């Protein structure tokens, strides 16, 4: 049995790759591609009459497979189905790092899931609060309630938009410019930042349209997303490349963090780099840059 460390609420999540929890050949070593988070799917990928079988597979995968540093999230079935309660029990019992709530429309949805998670944590002797949550917004109502959803629970680490269902509701199709979902993406990002949690973009399903995919990822980065949901391992690397900081950003971040730490150690509140005073408010961002740089193999120091 593989003991997993306590999940980290705000870790690097540039890439979150969906995998059908029912396919043993897929889930046995999905971590080898270097994805940040694996999203084992009990929902759309699993046929209605195989939901039970998928849970048994999932349980043993969680208990047996060494996913190493890769985060393991499970997408559970919607609250309007008969499956979600058992889905939550198996996630908690198996020790998944987090649960993705499908079709989330309100803070109440988050609270409903949170209650069931807490009950499961008690039932299976798991530390209360260990299991993290994220919500997928798939409808206009979900987008309009984005802030209350994001702020609903201290377990919430992030929110994602799910393009397929959302576009259906909006009667739109994917466009190269992304204008079809621009407003929704923007509203969700603002809500997530206001609540202090992460924000992830939807999947890009046309695997043959490499240029379209890259354009969307570039736009994601410019808009301020933390990462993207993926459907194929070959999408991982381009996202990591696009989300990577520049060398200049890394050098600057390192200098700032180092100077700040040294100043703090001496009890000095104000500090300068190259003779210029640096605002303490920049430090969390600089630390984030260094973490990102480390994950991209651009920084090997020990500041993060």
């Amino acid at each position: 049995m593989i003991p997993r460390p306590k999940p980290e609420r705000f870790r690097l999540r540039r890439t979150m790759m969906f995998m059908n929890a029912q396919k043993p050949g897929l889930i046995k070593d999905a971590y080898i591609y270097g994805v940040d988070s694996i999203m084992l799917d009990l929902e759309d990928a699993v046929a209605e009459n195989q939901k039970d079988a998928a849970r048994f597979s999932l349980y043993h995968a969680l208990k047996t497979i060494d996913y190493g540093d890769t985060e393991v999230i499970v997408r559970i079935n919607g609250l309007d189905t008969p499956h979600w309660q058992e889905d939550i029990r198996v996630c908690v019992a198996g020790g998944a790092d987090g649960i993705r709530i499908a079709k989330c429309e309100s803070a109440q949805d988050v609270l409903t899931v949170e209650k069931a998670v807490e009950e499961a944590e008690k039932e299976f002797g798991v530390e209360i609060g260990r299991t993290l949550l994220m919500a997928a917004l798939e409808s206009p109502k979900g987008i309009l309630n984005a802030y209350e959803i994001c702020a609903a629970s201290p377990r919430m680490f992030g929110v994602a938009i799910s393009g397929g269902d959302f576009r259906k509701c909006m009667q739109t199709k994917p466009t190269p410019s992304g204008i079809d979902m621009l407003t929704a993406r923007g509203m969700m990002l603002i809500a997530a930042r206001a609540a202090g949690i992460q924000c992830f973009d939807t999947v890009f399903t046309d695997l043959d349209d490499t240029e379209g995919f890259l354009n969307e990822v570039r736009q994601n980065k410019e808009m301020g997303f933390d990462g993207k949901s993926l459907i194929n391992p070959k999408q991982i690397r381009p996202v990591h490349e696009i989300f990577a900081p520049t060398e200049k950003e890394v050098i600057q971040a390192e200098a700032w963090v180092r100077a700040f730490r040294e100043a703090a150690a001496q009890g000095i509140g104000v500090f300068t780099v190259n003779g210029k005073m640096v605002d303490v408010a920049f430090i969390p961002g600089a630390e984030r840059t260094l973490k990102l740089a480390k994950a991209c193999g651009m920084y090997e120091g020990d500041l993060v």
Partner: protein
Amino acid sequence: MKNAVGRDIPEYLLRDGREVYQGKNYMDGKYLQKAAPRTRRYEKPQESKIVDSIVDALRQVGARSGMTFSFHHHLRNGDFVVNMVMQAAIEELGLDDITIAATSLGEAHDPVAQYIEDGKVVGIQTSGIRGKIGEVVSAGKLQTPAIIRSHGGRPRAIEAGEVHIDIAVVAAPTSDCVGNCRGIGGKSNCGSLGYAMTDAKYADHVIVVTDCLVDFPNMPASVEAIDVDAVVVVDSIGNPKKIASAAARISQNPRDLMMAENVAKVIASTPYFKEGFSFQTGVGGPSLAANLFLEKYMDERGIKMGWAIGGICGPMVEMLKKGKVGKVIDVQDFDLDAVNSINQTPNHFEMSASQYANPANKGAFVNKLDFVVLAALEIDTGFNVNVLTGSDGVLRGAPGGHPDTAAGSKCCIIVTPLVRGRMATVCKNVVTVTTPGACVDVLVTDYGIAVNPLRPDLIKCLDDAGIPHVSIESLQEKAYSLVGTPDDLEWEDKVVAVLEARDGTILDVVRKIKPLKL
């Protein structure tokens, strides 16, 4: 007696001066007495050598029981000719005690398995053995152990007279009325006929079987009329769909691509990667995909490949046409792009199996290779590779040119996933050693790269380039941690196949497997 790769070879196989494998280049500098065929004189001018049927051709060349028949495998899984000839010899002429010496045998030849079970075919000599033939030989039903040789070892054995071919049958996509054969121009095109060339030169008798008769002279001929006794025209020599795929496509499998990219990285880190380097790759998913990534590194460094050899397919032809590779020399073609290019595209040439890989001749191409990228069914912690037997002990593979290119090249890279289903590819002991570990330099898997400790120079190259690598033992342990430690296979004493090293010594034997009964 234990050989240089630690395999126990039964003493009774070591007669007539046969030795166990002694290590790489053991035969270097020794002399070889070439065998000469006994051939019939055709002094009186013949208008045509065409006979009505395979049976007539066999009668004409005096086919009898106890003879050795040779075949090439350029028609691969689409081949009809082995089965047609065996049916004529066994069922129509009533022959038995037959030995088949083919350059490879596969699923297309499943009907031969019955002739083995019936005791009509008593010997098999081949570079590849798959399908039902592999199963019945593994089950101990062939009267003598099958002899497995590499593509280079086979022409060596023929030239040395260790295998004497009574009748070579050449399946020919086109032939003229006197037997000048080519691999293109008909309806069953296969491109190169490289594996048929040595057979035609050293056989006592040669029969050409074609389904496309063309005007004399069919030039440039791969097999020449001067060696041919008879020509038979049949409706079809093979199923074109199974002879060559439309186009070998580069894998889109992310696992293959990840490994292929690492192969290219390793290649680019070595000093051999410079203007004019030489290269061979297999057609397996990750091996073929290495082409793609290699091209990227070539562009970056502004260098071109000097020449490529091997089984050739579209992606390499594409590089030739783009001027990224100087010459392509071709012993067989895997797809229609390659078939349509050989002897057509400037600098795309045909060669014989001997010229390709024979360790006993004076200048095989493999000896000038910088890099070869190969697959494996299994590789053990001594870097020994098995491409012949499945992990269950059944014959279902082909040494092909694997041992030849590994031994000849400066840098041999094996690329394979760590596990396939529940089979550990990287294991403690391969079932059969087909390529000795001393010839293998680097292993690239989806879980990491390992360099043979015999190559500290390559280890330094990878370190300098910042390419992470681990010990092969750690990869093997990871594999077993995923799939569980396999039980040892159980064998009977009976040897069902003898695996010859390319130099003719005995590298390994395959015994009859005792299937597990619960």
